[in-house]
């Protein structure tokens, strides 16, 4: 894991942050100067106060320094927060842009979940890093340096002691932090297992209840939570020890400075104001380093989110791609010529040669994982052939403008994603400018009208996240309505009736028949109720495609 306190990639990836970072550094210098000014004024004020007199200029100076520090605190916080907001907005746009650039195959599966979390709430962890840690990091450089210089001017022997002891803080901090890290890593598996147990139990509660184990499990939940406490305390004992040692180091260092100062004061060899200044300033030299160290842990989450964000969007795909060719007409012949698609672990399609004539309806069957969806992915341009090529009307799909080609294609996936927007917006996904009234034919063709009628606000009903509120049969009909509205010459359907009950299946089936009529259609069908309509049937097994003639007797 990257444990550097500042990631220089930030400057490159978020150029807008540079100005604020410089400003933060400048403010850190000013803050150090103001600490010196305030301590100097206070030392003078108290030294005159020793004689019972009021040093008015010193009091005024002290108050001025305090006022300036107050304004500086505000400025530092505001700049840091502005920096955080800028970085988060930039990275969010970057991450989401990467999804657009890399395409859906890249984002599919586990990565989708990680990216959604990172872009959504993950990056908010940066607030703690930018507003809590980073300004403190600046201060841990500027304040010790300024204090050292000021004490050097006032009393060089004290400055010598400070300079000698100051490095002890980062050295001890690193050593002990490393120890704590080792201890945490040793326990990590155990900690995460015990920590995740509660969530697992709550998520599986209906199942526990079904087996009558729910109440018996209360004890187990308590036992595991207590196990988590014991394991956590083991690591905390070491983690807190580092805090203790650093505090003692700082205190002893201050004492090393203070004792000679006191003795010289007793001998009359030192002015009281100088002694007070040294006493007031010396702890300030050690404090920012310790605070930064203490806050580092809390900002780790933000730093690792930053690291994740940088890791994602740097692996840019071929940016220097030649200008895309215009897309071919979807009403042309589609040919796969010796196409092989190899993924890092498996080969999805092996040497597939296939011709799809315009207007042909082709059913694709085969066991799951055989490569059926990859076949559709090729035609959608989501997947590029590792070997061979896909041509439409003689034009190689690899070189064409993907968006323009996809306008010729309507796709009904196995589980369409519904967006957290109105039902109408979900239907007109491909053509956002369509007015509500123009949606009616597509809605009717997709047998969606009764669904629309049953919704409280009809077409304007807002769907929840991922289309929450609609059944799978209803979702599938929304996907069909999208395809009808698209009105494309090529339609690709990926098991449109999978997981539907028979009533929904009948409706979706009828709508599917209407959709494929007069179009070139490739239809992955697990439930062969759809096979009856096909002109040809392809069977995909283990990445190889064989053709079957429909057997009228079997399908009767």
């Amino acid at each position: 894991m990257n444990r550097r306190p500042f990631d220089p990639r930030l400057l490159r990836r978020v150029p807008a942050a540079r100005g604020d970072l410089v400003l933060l550094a400048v403010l850190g210098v000013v803050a150090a100067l103001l600490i010196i000014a305030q301590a100097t004024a206070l030392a003078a004020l108290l030294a005159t106060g020793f004689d019972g007199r009021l040093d008015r200029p010193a009091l005024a100076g002290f108050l001025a320094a305090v006022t300036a520090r107050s304004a500086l605190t505000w400025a530092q916080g505001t700049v840091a927060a502005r920096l955080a907001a800028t970085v988060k907005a930039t990275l969010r746009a970057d991450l989401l842009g990467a999804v657009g650039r890399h395409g859906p195959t890249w984002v599919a599966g586990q990565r989708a979940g990680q990216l959604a979390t990172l872009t959504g709430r993950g990056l908010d962890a940066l607030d703690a890093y930018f507003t809590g840690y980073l300004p403190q990091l600046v201060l841990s450089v500027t304040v010790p340096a300024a204090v050292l210089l000021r004490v050097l001017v006032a009393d060089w022997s004290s400055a010598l002691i400070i300079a000698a002891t100051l490095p002890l803080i980062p050295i001890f901090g690193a050593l002990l932090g490393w120890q704590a890290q080792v201890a945490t890593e040793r326990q990590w598996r155990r900690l995460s297992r015990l920590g995740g147990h509660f969530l697992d139990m709550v998520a599986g509660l209906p199942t526990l209840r079904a087996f009558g184990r729910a109440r018996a499990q209360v004890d187990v939940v308590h036992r595991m939570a207590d196990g988590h406490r014991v394991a956590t305390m083991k690591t905390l004992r070491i983690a807190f020890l580092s805090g203790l040692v650093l505090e003692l180091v700082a205190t002893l260092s201050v004492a090393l400075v203070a004792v000679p100062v006191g003795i010289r004061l007793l001998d009359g060899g030192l002015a009281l104001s100088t002694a007070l200044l040294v006493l007031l300033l010396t702890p300030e030299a050690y404090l920012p380093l310790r605070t930064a160290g203490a806050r580092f842990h809390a900002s780790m989450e933000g730093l690792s989110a930053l690291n994740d964000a940088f890791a994602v969007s740097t692996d840019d795909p071929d940016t220097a791609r030649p200008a895309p060719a215009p897309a071919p007409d979807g009403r042309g012949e589609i040919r796969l010529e010796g196409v092989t698609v190899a993924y890092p672990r498996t080969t999805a399609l092996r040497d597939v040669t296939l011709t799809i004539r315009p207007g042909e309806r082709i059913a694709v069957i085969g066991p799951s994982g055989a490569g059926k969806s990859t076949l559709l992915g090729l035609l959608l341009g989501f997947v590029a052939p590792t070997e061979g090529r896909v041509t439409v009307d003689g034009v190689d799909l690899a070189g064409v403008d993907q968006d323009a080609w996809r306008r010729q294609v309507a796709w009904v996936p196995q589980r369409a994603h519904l967006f957290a927007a109105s039902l109408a917006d979900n239907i007109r996904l491909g053509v956002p400018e369509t007015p509500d009234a123009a949606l009616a034919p597509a809605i009717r063709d997709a047998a969606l009208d009764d669904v629309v009628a049953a919704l409280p606000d009809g077409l304007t009903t807002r769907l929840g996240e991922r289309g929450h509120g609609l059944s799978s049969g209803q979702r599938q009909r929304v996907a069909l309505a999208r395809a009808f509205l698209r009105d494309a010459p090529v339609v690709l359907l990926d098991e449109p009736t999978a997981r539907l009950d028979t009533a929904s299946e009948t409706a979706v089936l009828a709508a599917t028949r209407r959709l494929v009529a007069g179009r070139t259609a490739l239809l992955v069908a697990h439930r062969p109720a759809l096979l009856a309509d096909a002109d040809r049937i392809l069977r995909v097994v283990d990445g190889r495609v064989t053709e079957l003639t429909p057997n009228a007797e079997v399908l009767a």
Partner: protein
Amino acid sequence: MSAAAATRRPAAPGRGGPLAAERTVLRLTRPYLRRLLGTGLLATATELAGLALMASATWLLMSAAGQPPLDRLTVAIVAVRALAIGRGVFRYTERLAGHDAVLRLVADVRARVFASLAARRDTAGQRSGDALSRLVSDVETVQDLLLRVLVPACAAGLVGVLAVGGAALVSPAAAGVLAGGLLLAGVVLPALATALTRRGAAEVAPLRGALAADAVDLTHGAADLAAFGATGYALDAATQRAGRLARLERRLAAAGFAVDAAGVLVAGLTAGAVVLVALRAGVDGVLVGVLAVGTLAAVEIALALVGAARQWSQLRAGLARVATLLDAAPPPLPTTPPAAPGRTVSAGPHDVRFAAVTVRYRAGAAPALDRFDLDLPAGRRVAVVGPSGAGKSTLAAVLTGAVRPTAGRVTLDGRDLADHPAADLPRAVGGLLAEAYVFHATVRENLLLGRPGADPAELAGAAGAAGLLDWVHEQPDGWETVVGEEGGQLSGGQRQRLALARALLAAPGVLVLDEPTEGLDPAAADTVLASALAAVPAGHSVLVISHRLHGLAGLDEIVVLDAGRVVQRGTHAELVRSPGWYREQWRVQEAAERGYLALAP
């Protein structure tokens, strides 16, 4: 009295007044009160040591300037050393003691929240993944409430009082000024910070939620967006929202950090005023210094309350949710599980009878189940089929006691189902229910949930009947294979087989199998259903719920449900002979599946 109290109670959100959630949580601290009190005292001692260290060091230095004999300073020198070391040690012990006490409390809260959720019989237990992780972080708020709000707040308050008292010994006037500064730093500014944080959260939360939804749509819906050429449009919308959020966050930060700026100002002004007042009052010069340095330190400690107040206002929503669950928690259970003998009694054969059972989820709504009759004596095997939404799942819910009939009766061995102890019921009635969950544990642990204490032969038998055994033997870790979070390491088919094997291992007298072959291809579905039915002990009755009609020929009776009503019943042979929904569906499905099977050699 209580009625009067109730009427006096202000109209606060939730029940029990404005701090009800905090009170509920604090009630749970009773077993750890001594530990927490110790933590609070240690925290106070830590802060006090820091304050006294600065004050006594200043006294020492300024006294030394008067060049007294060394022995007059000895006590102070010893005090400074003791305070310097004491502060670190106090802090270390305080942090350890505090975390230990609070983690103990969190373990209790987890158990109680779980017990409260477990005691619910409604379907509210089914939550989305997001709501679940929120629940978990809600429980963690208890930890923050104590460690980051209550303990530091109590310590700061106590130190403030002691500091004012100490200053009053030197100069009552200076003590008055200090008290004023402390009130500003410790009461007014925290109140301001609370108000600002609350207002800011109310503005930011909806925007952050919308942005999270955007992120989900752009990632999980990436294929749909790309296929329909809508990626750019969605991307622009999300980027604009991110920009809006950034602007709002900047604006809120400007207001929020004004409070911190005021804190710095209050500390300095109070110290300056204390010096002024003390000098006017003719306080000794050394003590003026002590007062000034002490004031700066004391106000600094009080300012910790600003952070605590912010933390608190961020915690409140989560705390309220936890408190609702804690209030609903049943009394703690006896720690020993119920004795085993009861199990053998109720795990055997049972007779179930539905008599005119009607279920209406809402008054006035169409019934989900309408005057349903079924006789399910020991050993009988019945299938319930029908289109989705026909009432099949409601039937399973009624049978397992999750839903109570609105009218009619369900009896188990002649006694009303509701009269049987709810804790005993799953041993008699249960099995594979909708949304079976696979736990982040080993295959063995997942199976043993069905029957704790099952021997290896029984495990292998159930896994074999569900068609899982070969897969288990293929795994390098065999039975000890850990299936990932929510069974993520398993394919859909293996998951289903695991859930089925668990149900078969549980072997309740009345076995419910809700869509037992969902997610399996037709050939595998036939094999698994046949072997699962064969594995049910003689005398046990079975209720299969299925939308797939194949493989039900061997059952004693098939009931066809439509819109909650029984439209057909009989054996498979009878039903395929007579016209109706069953015959029609059978033909459609059969043609489709035979076609598939014929095509797949």
